[in-house]
């Protein structure tokens, strides 16, 4: 499969990928390397994993990272309740010692968390490790071991080797610098806000019912808005919300009614100071330029 075919397959699922991203994804698939995606919030980093899973008919396993994420929640945990019940039951049956111990530390009593689940699938899944920059550095070290060897050591049970290699996609918003070791093991792509033509294609594939003229205005408006000095630039999801809001209100032209335009800006501007900065006059001016 070449990257152009991959891009077509993704487009069929409604994801318009840039050439860079398509090549990187195809390499990640064929070389079996993890792919690290960085970029601002709302440029479609998480979505690409979901779409890839759909397009290639693979299962998606998602691990959402957060501060304090540890091995018990990311890799595996013993099912303590079940173990305890088994011990009680065994005591009543008169069973003791090693037999019970062997039984309660077997695979049946292991709760699989996303990372363990990802390497024990029969068919290779897509493993999405979302917002890796939120996890602690210790967790990054765990991850390195798993990403390089695709095996997990459980002290009571031994080493579990990967049945199949998952396609690993990591995303990062850049809230902290990732370690060089992790970066080295991954292929890397910086996902930027799409250019005008790409964004128009995204809007058309997600909301086919938007009229061409309005779609053009919406994309032009959002693109111009990103050039303004905002705290939080609107992402693609916000752009789609904005288009949906305009559709819902039955607006055919952005420049028609400044008051309605201003009220729909709540879908694009997500902080108080941004809302204060884009006054109706500014919004009108941007809409005028975008039209």
């Amino acid at each position, binding site marked *: 499969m070449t990257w152009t075919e991959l891009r077509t397959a993704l487009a069929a699922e409604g994801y318009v990928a840039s050439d860079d991203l398509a090549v990187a994804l*195809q390499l990640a698939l064929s070389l079996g390397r993890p792919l690290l995606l960085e970029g601002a919030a709302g440029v479609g980093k998480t979505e690409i994993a979901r779409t890839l899973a759909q397009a290639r008919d693979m299962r998606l396993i998602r691990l959402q990272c957060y501060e304090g994420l540890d091995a018990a929640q990311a890799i595996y945990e013993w099912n*303590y309740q079940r173990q305890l019940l088994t011990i009680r039951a065994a005591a009543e049956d008169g069973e003791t010692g090693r037999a019970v111990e062997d039984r309660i530390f077997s695979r049946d009593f292991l709760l699989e968390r996303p990372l363990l689940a990802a390497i024990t699938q029969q068919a290779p899944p897509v493993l999405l490790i979302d917002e890796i920059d939120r996890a602690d550095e210790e967790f990054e070290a765990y991850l390195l071991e798993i990403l390089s060897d695709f095996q997990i050591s459980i002290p009571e049970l031994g080493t579990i080797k990967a049945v199949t290699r998952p396609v690993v996609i990591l995303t990062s918003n850049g809230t902290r610098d990732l370690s060089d070791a992790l970066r080295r093991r991954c292929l890397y792509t910086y996902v930027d806000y799409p250019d005008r033509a790409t964004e128009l294609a995204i809007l058309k594939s997600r909301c086919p019912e938007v009229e061409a003229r309005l779609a053009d205005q919406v994309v032009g408006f959002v693109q111009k808005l990103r050039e303004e000095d905002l705290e939080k630039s609107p992402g693609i999801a916000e752009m789609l919300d904005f288009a949906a809001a305009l559709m819902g209100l039955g607006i055919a032209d952005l420049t028609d009614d400044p008051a309605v335009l201003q009220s729909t800006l709540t879908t694009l501007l997500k902080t108080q100071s941004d809302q204060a900065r884009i006054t109706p006059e500014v919004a009108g001016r941007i809409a005028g330029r975008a039209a």
Partner: protein
Amino acid sequence: MSRVTKFASRDPGPAARVAGFIAHLRENGLRLGVAEADVALAALTHVDAIRPGDSRRALRAVCTGCKEEAERFDDLFDSYWMDMGRVRQKVVPKAKSPTNDDVHSSRDANGGDAGASGSATAPDIEGGEAEADGTGKLIATNQRNMRRRDLRDMVRSEEIAAAEEVARQIGAALRDKRSRRRIAARKGDRLHFRKIIRHSLSTGGEPLRLLRRKRPDRTRKIVALCDVSGSMSVYAQVFLAFLAGLMRADSAADAYLFHTRLVRITEALRDKDALRAIGRLSLMADGFGGGSKIGPSLMRFADTYAKRFVDGRSVVLILSDGYDTEAPRMIADALAKLRKRGCKVIWLNPLKGWADYSPVAAGMSAAMPYLDLFKAANTLGDLAALEQELATL
């Protein structure tokens, strides 16, 4: 005509060319190992390597590791593979001679022409002379200094070692902020009794897992911004040594230089060889000793890097004299924006050490309301004396 580089006929083949390309990237500061050359070759077999666009994208995915590298990659790719048909002599990476480190090579390459233009456009490259002639007045200048100045002439390695010690103390004073409360932790010094009892319910009242708690470290991260404009060049020696020391003492610290532009120097200063770190710095800080645009530089910092590296646990340390050529409003706005991220802002001004100094420079007085601490610092000793003040912050 094709722009693709024509390699010499004795060139040993594609593998050597790719290895040569990796070496080329490495010389330009990308951190690539032997394994990357392997992956790069493998990657090329999976795309249509004849088409330059495809090869470029594939190699970019393999060889870059962060946004800055990705942005530089296109130029590096062009300079190696798209050499306008010029024959390149060396495609096989050869062993480097011990004297030829990357700092020397690139400095020699363009040091001459940069120096030639410098004399014409830099009227006051020596801030020290202004002080020496008795007027005692340092003013901000508008000009960008085009001459590249070698910072290694100004900083000696013993000073860096001394500064490292000071930086380590200051770092420790700022960092040792343990919380009063204890929170749940995997490795704690005490048992988390309430949690144990709650958990034991699911195991029939038997406390099977002993949960622990500890006092979390509320580490403070130091972010230093150093002004290296003309008016500051007398003090640059101390401050640069301090920054170099800080970087070496504290792996979480972050450093920037600014004059008319803002440059992140964290990576350069982390170089294992202290003097080479300063050498890399002089390559990055071209315009050193020129004019100062404090407001725009701080604003740029608040808009870009601060979003990634500054949070409520950061201490932003600004080393500057406050002489700015831009409107003082900019400084105030930038600092207000920074403060919103919840960080502490400390301004160390070398001029404050002068007798009868008052912050009358428009920029400085605009900044005053936003500062948590405003102190003098001329020498390493002064910096070391700050330890007490910083600890109580």
